[in-house]
Each structure stands twice: as structure tokens, then as C-alpha cells.
């Protein structure tokens, strides 16, 4: 079965430090990959997506992610985080299940940026 694993449920980091949020997926067919951010009591906002082309994807708020097909990973990175980056981050994979594309979600990673 297809699945998405976010390897860290919580990531504490100091302000201005780099951060990597890890995401691995299992799928044997072509995938689309997404990272979303959710601030408290708000909906989800798209950070970035990979559909095809360059495996290094740049998104909003200084985030980027790299699609690694051989390792089935799509890790999210930011070289220097701000307090305002404190939020929940979700990785999602769109893959075919039968004749339809299904969106499969990770359980989220809570990023806490401390001063």
C-alpha cells in the first residue's frame, strides 16, 4: 500500500539555524509531491510542489525541497529559520490507485523555532 512517512513528529530548532524536515514515501508509480504548512487554527497552505522536471524545487518563505527518486524521499529544507516559521508541516504524495490519483498525507511535523 502507498504511504507517506514524516520521520520526525517534532523538530525544535533555534532561530537562524538551518532545518530539514524529512519525508519518505512508498509508491511504485509516478508521483506528485507536495509540502504544506499549517499555522495554528488555520487551513493548509501550499509551500511547494514537485510534478516533473528539476528535482530541486523552490517554494515560498525561503523553503526548498529535493525529490530523490532512488531514495523515495522529498525532504524540506530552509537554510535559516525565523520564529514565524513555527507551524505544522505536512508532506503529501499524489499517486495512482487503480484508475484514479489519490492524495496520501503524512502525519505532520511540528516545527518549533526558539529564540
Amino acid at each position, binding site marked *: 500500500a502507498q504511504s507517506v512517512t514524516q520521520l520526525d513528529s517534532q523538530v525544535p530548532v533555534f532561530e537562524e539555524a538551518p532545518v530539514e524536515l524529512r519525508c519518505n514515501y512508498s509508491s511504485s508509480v509516478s508521483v506528485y509531491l507536495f509540502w504544506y504548512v499549517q499555522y495554528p487554527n*488555520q487551513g*493548509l497552505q*501550499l509551500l511547494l*510542489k514537485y510534478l516533473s522536471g528539476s528535482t530541486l524545487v523552490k517554494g515560498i518563505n525561503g523553503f526548498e525541497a529535493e525529490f530523490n527518486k532512488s531514495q523515495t524521499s522529498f525532504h524540506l529544507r530552509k537554510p535559516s529559520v525565523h520564529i514565524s516559521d513555527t507551524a505544522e508541516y*505536512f508532506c503529501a504524495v499524489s499517486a495512482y490507485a487503480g484508475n484514479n490519483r489519490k492524495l496520501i*498525507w503524512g502525519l*505532520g511535523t511540528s516545527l518549533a523555532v526558539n529564540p
Partner: protein
Amino acid sequence: SQTIHQWPATLVQPVGSPLSLECTVEGTSNPNLYWYRQAAGRGLQLLFYSVGIGQISSEVPQNLSASRPQDRQFILSSKKLLLSDSGFYLCACLTWGGELFFGEGSRLTVL
């Protein structure tokens, strides 16, 4: 670009009472629409999706139902709420770019 309005934003209801959460989409036509639930400490659970008026697909058996009376209106309902229905409910539409665009959510507390 699209906009999604969800209301009410917050709701506290007693067990056994009915529920109606509304979602209205602007800026697009004939969208694929979705209802997700987010329980505390858990990820996103797809409840229903709709590809058009009157067309509803249910992902999990539960105490809830959905309807799509108009192209850009998606309603989540229950006749009798359970404690386990508490959560954060999110409406979303599929964009031309292939990603989901979410509303601001409705937080339901069942007491």
C-alpha cells in the same frame, strides 16, 4: 485565483445534536471539492469528495454526510453528533496546478 469560505469558524455542539458546515468556493467553476477532518494529534483524514453537483464519494463509513447542491457549494452534515466527531474540518478544492487549496477550517467541539 480561488477563495474558499467556511462557516461557522467555531462551533460547540452537544452530543446528539445536528450539524451543518458550509463551504463556498469563489474564483473557479466546476471544481473538485473535498472535506477533510483533522483530529488532535493526527493527520488529515479525507471524508468526502465531489466532482460535480449531486456527486458525492465517501471515503470512510461514519456519522457524517455531504451534499453538493450547487457547483461551488459543499455542505457537511450530521443528524446526531458523537463525541468522536470533534475536530477541525477543512474544505478544499483541486486547482489547475494539481494541488489542493484549503479554506480556513471549522473547529467543532462536541460536548
